[in-house]
């Protein structure tokens, strides 16, 4: 979707505010939200669906509220969507129904267990597939002009542009479909673009931008 989250190259956001950059969490609630996101039971969602739910936050809230607030907002929305929470419960600040069974009580985990758990979070998103890659390293490609109307990882600033395959990373879960609940692996590439291909003011700059893009985002360039 062409949402407020698609910030690459957008202008007008002003200077970078580095306030508190050496603090891990600036306020206690930020740590609580971080922790909830690590260990709460969730209704079978994918990372892409969660990201899409965050993208759907009202633009003014997305911009004006603190970062971890958007995580809480996203969590609420996924639990509501799944029927695990209701607006009434949120308004009341307490659970109003006990008829749903979410499984065994959760044991408290200690620091060492968390360090092991963090290790277990080293998820891989790639897999072997039968289809050979359509592009080879060094090949020129152009990107699709249209993004997916739902979740997509082809940002607006890199649409309809010509770049070059920098690397092939095997087949990774395709996010546009994963956000809809379909897990399909597709070849993933790093694609490098000259800055001048992307930005009007970069004509005489030799900088480059690298993006990781799935095969469905790419087209061969016929010269």
């Amino acid at each position, binding site marked *: 979707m062409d949402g407020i*989250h*698609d910030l*690459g*190259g957008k202008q007008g*956001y002003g*200077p*970078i*505010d580095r306030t*508190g*950059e050496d603090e891990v*969490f600036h*306020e206690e609630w930020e740590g*609580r939200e971080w922790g*909830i996101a*690590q260990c709460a039971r969730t209704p*079978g*969602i994918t990372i892409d669906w969660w*990201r899409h*739910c*965050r*993208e*759907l936050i*009202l633009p003014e*809230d997305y*911009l004006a509220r603190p970062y971890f607030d958007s995580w*809480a*907002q996203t969590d609420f*929305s*996924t*639990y*509501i*969507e799944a*029927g695990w929470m209701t607006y009434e*419960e*949120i308004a009341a600040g307490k659970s109003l129904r006990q008829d*749903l069974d*979410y499984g065994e009580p*959760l044991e408290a*985990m200690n*620091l060492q267990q*968390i360090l092991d758990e*963090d290790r277990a979070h*080293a998820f*891989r*998103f790639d897999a072997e597939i039968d289809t050979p890659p359509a592009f080879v390293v060094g090949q020129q490609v152009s990107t699709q002009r249209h993004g997916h109307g739902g979740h997509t*990882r082809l*940002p607006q*600033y890199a649409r309809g542009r010509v770049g070059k395959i920098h690397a092939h*990373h095997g087949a*990774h879960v395709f*996010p546009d479909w994963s956000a*809809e*609940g379909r897990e399909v692996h597709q070849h993933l590439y790093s694609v490098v673009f000259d800055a001048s291909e992307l*930005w009007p003011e970069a004509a005489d700059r*030799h*900088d*480059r*931008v*690298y993006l*990781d893009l799935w095969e469905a985002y790419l087209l061969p360039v016929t010269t």
Partner: protein
Amino acid sequence: MPEFDAKKVAEAHQHLHSHLPSESALRVKTLETLLEQKGLVNPATIDAWVEAYTEEIGPRRGAQVVARAWVDPAFKARLLEDAPAAIDEFGFLGKATAHLKVVENTDSVHNLVVCTLCSCYPFSILGIAPAWYKAAAYRSRAVRDPRGVLAEFGVEIGDEVEVRTWDSTAELRYLVLPQRPPATEDLDEEGLAALVTRNSMIGTDRDLGGSA
């Protein structure tokens, strides 16, 4: 089970915009309370996650990896070839580093990492991302105006240096391998690691202060 119904989620956001307290702390408190009452979270486990990412997992991990790469060419080669395996030699493999890639700064190349679409970050090796990394100003500008961004961080990049911005659009995560500062021959690995800043591994810092 969820149906992944985006319309329902958009409506939830609109509803919550008007019906949740405006203070973030209160909102998160409400979330935690509901989850605990429903048996969906154990607050003590939240405590442990906060402790892990405050005390144990953070940019000192990345700094150790960088220092090792500076002193051990074979390790550096492994790191550039297969970063997840290399950081696992330290036991640092974990959240969001299974597809880690290391990109190396040189005299003629400077690397900068961003996630323009959300806030992807190699957690198990750098810890929690700084607020600016997740904010609109950095996310919007790092791809378009990397030299302006770097200047705000006090980093001046000569015209002869190519700036490469890595936008983390997939599950790959990027770690910048900064250059070893000059005149650090007499420092050991631990001394070198102390020179490595978190920002230098994101790319918003370049010349590490070894010569002082």
